[in-house]
């Protein structure tokens, strides 16, 4: 069941709590009463089609926004992706880091330090990836919107698979669940793993939004301008 303009905003939240941070990125906050998606988008001046494309892509791995839905201004999606990055940098990553520190300190062994070191390397790589998108990809899209076509680039240059990042995060999961035999605090470990799992899922959805919404829109602009 996909969300549509008549879906009650409260029902949307109940069906998928991990949409809460997504709503926040749109500046939507709780207290919906029985307003629909359409009502709230109107109120907040949000492009309804864009909002629906995002939430549906986010919750449903098989959802493909129809091309008619992709008529919104590409700057909307750039802005949305920037906010998502901000959320990762200022909230998700530090939170997971705090949990990991708690876990490592509960173990007091050198091997625990290895896990922590591995995660920090991952975070460094993740920041580089984000910076690359902010410094190169987003300005490129903004140029296209202003009808400036730079033939040095193509969206395909950026269609970088997030594989190495995905790999590292699933490696971390596997290392802990399959091979950790140290002394550690159970609750600290569970908290960390659940937070990591949620972050991993969120990243997958984020990557899907880039691939299914941003890339097709940019390709369209490229073919118009070239």
């Amino acid at each position, binding site marked *: 069941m996909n969300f549509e303009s008549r879906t009650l905003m409260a029902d949307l939240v109940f069906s998928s709590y991990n949409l809460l941070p997504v709503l926040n990125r749109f500046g939507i906050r709780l207290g919906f009463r029985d307003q629909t998606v359409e009502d709230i988008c109107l109120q907040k001046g949000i492009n309804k089609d864009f909002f629906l494309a995002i939430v549906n892509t986010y919750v449903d791995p098989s*959802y493909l926004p129809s091309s008619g839905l992709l008529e919104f201004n590409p700057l909307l999606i750039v802005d949305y992706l920037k906010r998502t990055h901000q959320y990762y940098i200022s909230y998700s990553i530090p939170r997971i880091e705090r949990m990991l520190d708690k876990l490592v300190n509960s173990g007091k062994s050198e091997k625990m330090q290895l*896990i922590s*070191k591995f995660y920090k390397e991952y975070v460094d790589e993740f920041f580089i990836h984000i910076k690359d998108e902010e410094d190169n990809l987003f300005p490129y899209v903004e140029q296209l919107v202003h009808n400036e076509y730079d033939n040095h680039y193509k969206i395909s240059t950026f269609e970088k698979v997030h594989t190495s990042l995905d*790999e590292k995060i*699933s*490696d971390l999961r596997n290392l802990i669940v*399959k091979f*950790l*035999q140290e002394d550690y605090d159970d609750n600290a470990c569970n908290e960390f793993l659940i937070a990591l799992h949620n972050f991993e899922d969120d990243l997958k959805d984020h990557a899907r939004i880039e691939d299914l919404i941003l890339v097709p829109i940019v390709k369209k602009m490229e073919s118009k301008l070239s």
Partner: protein
Amino acid sequence: MKCHVHIIHPSDIVRLGIENIIRSIPLVQVSSYLYFKDFTYQPNEKNLVIFDKDYLDDFYDITKRHNGKLILGICINTGNKIIGKSDVKCVKLDIGENELRELVKHELGLTGKSIGKVEQNSLSAREVDVVRCIAKGMSNKEIADVLCISTHTVITHRKNITAKLGIKSASGLTVFALLEGIISGSDMSL
């Protein structure tokens, strides 16, 4: 192999309902028709036909016509009587959405790996050697030279190691080697 699902049913609501459910399966093409005469077999794809029980004979006709070509069938049966031969799956009209989706996926062979598959997960002695080399930061070429095997073999070992451990990156394998005591911290500059 691409998968193509054909839905053939005289009732608009049934046909569109099924179509809607099937469209949510990734990597599957969907066509739908009112009558069997409009059915077009897709060569080079897996063909699955979901049809009304009144079209059962038509279905057998086309399977005969495309002699030996695999066409899978799911027959929608409104009554309680089970009809058809064993090579056609029969489902009742009150089948649940998820149940139908899973059945179609199963018929098309799209069901993912089952969880809890029994696999031999311990590394062989040779694989342990390869992990040790990776942890020391050696390239595939260097590993091949040290172990006197071809780089191609090294790559095969790496694939198998990853399949067994679920760890892909070199740095992840390094942490694994340290956790398992395959190398010690003094063997490498951490």
